[in-house]
């Protein structure tokens, strides 16, 4: 067990090292210099540019820049080019803002996708199966921003509630009930929107997995034992069909930032995605780099957790991580 832990951890750290290099390289090697943040600004003299370059170590060789960058990041002294705030603090604040969207969205996704997929697989070719199939394709193919605007129009016109932003501006002094209600209204639409494609994709995947497992010999054995249908499907088949989804646990985390860029921009939601977007607009390298790095760390953490879970759930996995059949 300890060996599994240790080996996995070392592997993850090596991966992290390469991630740090790649994210640094991508940003630094791209043409364009942060000192050209605003080249048209007449107040920006040559001296100003030099001063900026010095302040951000841009005059040093790349490997020193790399070293200094991560040193500063970990000691929390890395500052944003734009407002001189510490990067980690900025990311953390925005992370907290993104969290409700992410949690509600993930809960929605997982709690809807599984029942839909399983039901469709068991009743293959039924009306239910056909209609979920159709809607899945529809939602997989809908661009999120297109759907978002349609939904905004719909919500504003039908319910007449404001949905942009994290809460309604200028109403902070209203009663507690109003505030809670307001927050919920604001959270619902963006999280539903970020969940919808996920539900569609995941339910298709669950359905496919379930269909494959139902064809297995051991399901036929369970039937030959005279077990009721429910036990055959929901005990014998489902346990096996669910195994692969444990590994998906880690991979949903990139959605926390990548998938939310567009939705957070539309809804003016001050989360991680929007932070990234703003940073890109401002060529705020420390923030962009920091975000990429933090996101990758979160993914690694997620995969680590799912490796552990997988080991617990599948008796065939030995602690060496090899699967025997």
């Amino acid at each position, binding site marked *: 067990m300890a060996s599994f832990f240790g080996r996995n951890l070392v592997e993850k750290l*090596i*991966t992290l090292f*390469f*991630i740090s290099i*790649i*994210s640094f390289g*991508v*940003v630094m090697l*791209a*043409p*364009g210099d942060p000192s050209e943040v605003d080249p048209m600004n007449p107040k920006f003299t040559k001296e100003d540019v030099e001063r900026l370059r010095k302040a951000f170590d841009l005059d040093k060789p790349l490997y020193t820049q790399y070293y200094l960058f991560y040193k500063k990041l970990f000691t929390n002294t890395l500052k944003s080019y734009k407002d001189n705030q510490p990067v980690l603090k900025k990311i953390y604040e925005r992370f907290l803002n993104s969290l409700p969207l992410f949690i509600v969205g993930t809960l929605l996704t997982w709690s809807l996708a599984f029942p839909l997929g399983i039901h469709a697989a068991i009743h293959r070719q039924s009306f239910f199966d056909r209609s979920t*199939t*159709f809607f899945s*394709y*529809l939602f*997989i*193919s*809908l*661009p*999120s*921003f*297109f759907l978002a*605007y*349609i939904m905004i*129009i719909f919500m504003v016109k039908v319910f007449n509630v404001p949905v942009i932003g994290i809460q309604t501006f200028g109403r902070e002094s209203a009663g507690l009930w109003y505030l809670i209600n307001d927050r919920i209204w604001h959270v619902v639409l963006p999280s539903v929107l970020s969940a919808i494609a996920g539900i569609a994709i995941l339910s298709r995947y669950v359905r496919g997995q379930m269909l494959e497992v139902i*064809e297995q010999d051991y399901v036929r054995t369970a039937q030959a034992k005279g077990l009721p249908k429910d036990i055959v499907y929901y005990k014998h088949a489902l346990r096996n069909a669910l195994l692969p989804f444990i590994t998906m646990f880690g*991979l949903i985390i*990139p*959605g*926390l*930032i*990548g*998938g939310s*860029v*567009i939705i957070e*921009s539309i809804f003016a939601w001050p989360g991680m*995605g929007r932070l*990234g*977007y703003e940073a*890109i*607009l401002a*060529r705020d390298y420390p923030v*962009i780099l920091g*975000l*990429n790095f933090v*996101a*990758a760390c979160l*993914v*690694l953490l997620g995969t680590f957790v799912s490796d552990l879970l997988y080991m617990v759930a599948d008796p065939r996995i030995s602690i060496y991580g090899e699967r025997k059949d």
Partner: protein
Amino acid sequence: MTEKNIKPPGRYSDESGLPPQMSRIQDFWHQLRENTLALWGLILLILFFIIAIAGTKLTLGKNPIMDPEQVRLVDTLKPPLSKANRQVLAPEDRPLFGIYLLGTDKLGRDVLARTLQGAHVSLLVGFISVGISVLIGIILGALAGYYGGYVDSVIMRAVDIMLCFPSFFLILTIVALLPASIWNIMVVIGLTSWPGIARFVRAEFLALRKQDFVVAAEALGLSKCKIMFEHMVPNALAPILVSATIGVASAILTESGLSFLGFGVPPPDASWGNILADGKEFIFDAPWLFIVSGTAILLTVLAFNLFGEGLRDALNPKLREQ
């Protein structure tokens, strides 16, 4: 039945084992026909190709029949089917037949012409970026699956690393840092979306590697390169084709997302994403801008997805036997 009509016993048994010969394409069509959704996907796809190719012919060149970049300040935000202003506009500035079939935008540009041009852009982005990612994916996946050992470890580590990045954000970062150009977008999408393909090409190769026909090819003294690319790749092609089709759909979506955020195809070229981004400002005054481009993206992506899934079913030997 006369004696003549009966084949001698030996002949009969020789042929009874062989079902009537059916070409691969016939067989494939046979399977596809039973999947209604995939059939719709195919119809939409053919339509999309016709539109995209026609769009290229009509909107490109020096004096195109329909000029997507023609600014007409007298005819801004005209609804669909409205007539062009004949008094002010010179004949060569007027739209085809003098009608704005899908309306105009805030600069009075013909939305139909712009949508047609957008089709061409989507097609280009979809196919070139997927071409790049499939090429990288096949080569790396094949090497990893065939050689195993260290080659495999290194390549799979690279895949793991790539999968750790939030892909859309990574693409957005790189695209934003590079000079705005449609070629950059295609290359960046291509360079960031190969890990998935590499992963399953590797899995296919691992399975194929154990098949006796690969061992037989080795025993016959064929070169490794020949074995990999002439024996193994064709057998992995079916799933690659499926994932490429679905990859085209997602590349089109990614491009439209980038355009929507303002980092896509640079103006004055039109793409469905930036028509939609322009349209969001006039969502109540000129909803057609928004709806036309959004629907175009939806239908195209839907077509690729449906057809891709249909391909998956039609090419899947497991489903075939049922």
